[in-house]
């Protein structure tokens, strides 16, 4: 047992570090935990990704023929760790790289691959994933947005929601219902949609943290050429599963922290503890200790998954535990961070004008929902890891148009 890189991993890490140092002046850097607004910093974020792509650090696991590096998940994780260490923010096209691109690679035509993939890696085009709807979040296959064939085109009407990055995206992968007479999983079809096409309206949703990372997207008679279909009509669910499996790889993580790191909490505690009364200090240290233990438990569990990847394994359903643990830890870390501020915290900003911890705390409820709610993840773990019987799904084989009743 050790925490050292293998010789191959060490040499790859050294390579990544040297690339990041060489291009440091061309990359955007942010403070730990600092939220980055995709719209106001769009140009810098696109430039940063382009520089990284040209240096070979984007799409590490993608096949070489599509502009990737043909690398391993471990190398991908190392790039992620080093970007975090260098304080380069999350790539603007992270959804495109992690989910949309791999779906196009798996199910797209040669023409689609050649038109989209290289531009996606360079952030010439930013992508989003148009899955969730107001009436179908976790129950994704219940979606209602329709696509109706009209000559060489499909005509799309409906609404998506919680669409991260739609407000800066150029393209999206769009899951639609094309045959309501079939059971809900069988009547779906996936498309690539041009986010600048007539009839597409994007409305940012302001979230409880004050930021606006995701959006409502409305489709009013939007025409999509049949050549932009991904996979066969009615095969949309199978295509979407490719996306969702890649999402698990992207979110399940391998030792990266969700939210502020234990080290940032420790530094904060070092600054703030002396200002608290002795009684407050006792409580604050308890909170800090509890948060650190939860964070470290999640981090070292991530190291076990990383080791599995390193030995050539792939993340299984147990990877869902990483997000569950990470969310719980993020809750404790941000709570402790705010507690350390004492009653100054309720004014939103402290005397030095820094409200990082309050904003981070207000972001956690969203983490607990995005990419699978805590409850959905518990179902996955309970059913696929512990072998408990599934939730009843009474509408699984009924025609969608029957409203779920047989």
């Amino acid at each position: 047992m050790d925490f050292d890189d293998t010789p191959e991993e060490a040499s790859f890490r050294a390579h990544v570090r040297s690339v990041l140092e060489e291009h440091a002046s061309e990359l955007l850097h942010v403070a730990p935990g600092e939220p980055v607004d995709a719209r106001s910093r769009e140009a810098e974020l696109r430039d940063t990704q382009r520089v990284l792509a040209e240096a070979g650090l984007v799409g590490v696991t993608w096949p070489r023929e599509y502009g990737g590096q043909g690398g391993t998940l471990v190398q991908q994780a190392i790039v992620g760790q080093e970007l975090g260490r260098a304080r380069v923010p999350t790539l603007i096209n992270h959804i495109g790289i992690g989910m949309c691109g791999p779906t196009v690679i798996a199910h797209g035509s040669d023409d689609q691959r050649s038109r989209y993939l290289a531009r996606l890696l360079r952030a010439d085009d930013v992508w989003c994933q148009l899955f969730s709807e107001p009436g179908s979040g976790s129950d994704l296959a219940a979606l209602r947005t329709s696509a109706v064939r009209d000559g060489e085109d499909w005509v799309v009407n409906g609404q998506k929601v919680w669409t991260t990055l739609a407000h800066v995206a150029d393209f999206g992968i769009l899951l639609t219902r094309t045959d309501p007479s079939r059971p809900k999983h069988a009547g779906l079809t996936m498309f690539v949609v041009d986010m600048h096409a007539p009839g597409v309206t994007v409305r940012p949703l302001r979230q409880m943290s004050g930021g606006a990372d995701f959006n409502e997207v409305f489709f009013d008679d939007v025409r999509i050429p049949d050549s932009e279909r991904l996979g066969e009509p009615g095969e949309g669910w199978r295509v979407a599963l490719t996306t969702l499996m890649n999402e698990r790889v992207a979110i399940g993580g391998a030792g990266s922290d969700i939210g502020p790191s234990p080290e940032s909490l420790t530094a904060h505690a070092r600054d703030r503890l002396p200002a608290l009364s002795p009684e407050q200090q006792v409580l604050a240290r308890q909170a800090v200790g509890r948060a650190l233990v939860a964070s470290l438990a999640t981090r070292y569990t991530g190291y076990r998954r990383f080791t599995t990847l390193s030995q050539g394994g792939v993340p299984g359903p147990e990877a869902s535990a990483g997000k569950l643990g990470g969310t719980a830890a993020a809750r404790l870390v941000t709570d402790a961070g705010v507690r350390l501020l004492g009653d100054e915290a309720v004014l939103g900003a402290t005397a030095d004008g820094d409200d990082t911890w309050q904003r981070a705390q207000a972001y956690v409820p969203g983490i607990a929902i995005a990419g699978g709610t805590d409850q959905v993840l518990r179902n996955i773990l309970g059913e696929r890891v512990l072998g408990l019987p599934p939730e009843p799904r009474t509408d699984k084989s009924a025609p969608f148009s029957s409203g779920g009743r047989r």
Partner: protein
Amino acid sequence: MNFDLSDDQRDAAAGAREFFTGSVPLSAARAALEGEGPPAPGRKALADIGFLGITVPESAGGAGGSVLDLAVVAEQAGAVLAGPSLVTAARAAVLLEGAPDLAAQLADGSAAIAVLDGPVTGSAPSLDAADATLFLGLDGGALVVGEGEVTPGRPMDATRGLASVRMTSRRVLAEDAGELWARARQVGAVVMAAEDLGAADRAVLVGVDYAQQRQAFGRVIGSYQAVKHMLVDAWVGVDQLRSLVWWAAWAADSSPAELPLAAAAAKAYAAEVAERATETVVQVHGGIGFTWEHDAHLYWRRAKVDRLLLGDAAEHLDAVARLAVAGALG
């Protein structure tokens, strides 16, 4: 990075599992609780198979193994609530680094050694003291060994051999032993976390097994989220605890500077995870889980006792925070 057990450690875990499941029926924990017998498999059996000497140097008749080697065995011991505890062996092995003759007697079981917490003139409840004949204690900064008068009391978990002791003779093994004592206690905390890991893991399995069989309202209860999610939360805790136990054991062997923080983290988390897992297994069983006849309370007792031994969660969470603020986490 290779944060996983070696093949040898996996084999050792499998061997330990076979030994413990073969030699320690749960009825032994129940019999001990009812005053009808000592904890199983007992000191001699643990010595004979070599588990008491895993971390004792080969020169003193032990296996010269690592704390991690011991932790994987301790997990299996915890799964069947075995006694005496490997915590005592691990802690004594550290304390007896400078006393190879006593270490040899620890390893071969010829001396029944316990480590005393609190003042030697009237100790706190201490693990495996009930049937011990030789005691190690910290007396004014010195490590002492001697005999004592044992007061067992009525233990919540009889597999722990808990008793208070008044030492009646004292011989100094090492002056100025504060650091050695602290390190031994940290190693003990790691091994206790490993035993709790085994107990919590087994408790979750017992709960899952029942949730797959038992029907209510026309469905297997494990299909209800109220039951399923409770078991998943317990399982996630166990999975994460395993990571902290391995890290802390690795730190004991390979990164002494990390041991105080890692041991405190593992011990604090073990207390929480074992309590949640054993409370869960009681609840999943409903009324039957609350009966004397069901085994659930044997695991529950272990969790309720262990959370208070070798420092409670409050002490260890505070230690984690203090050490981290002092720079132990970077």
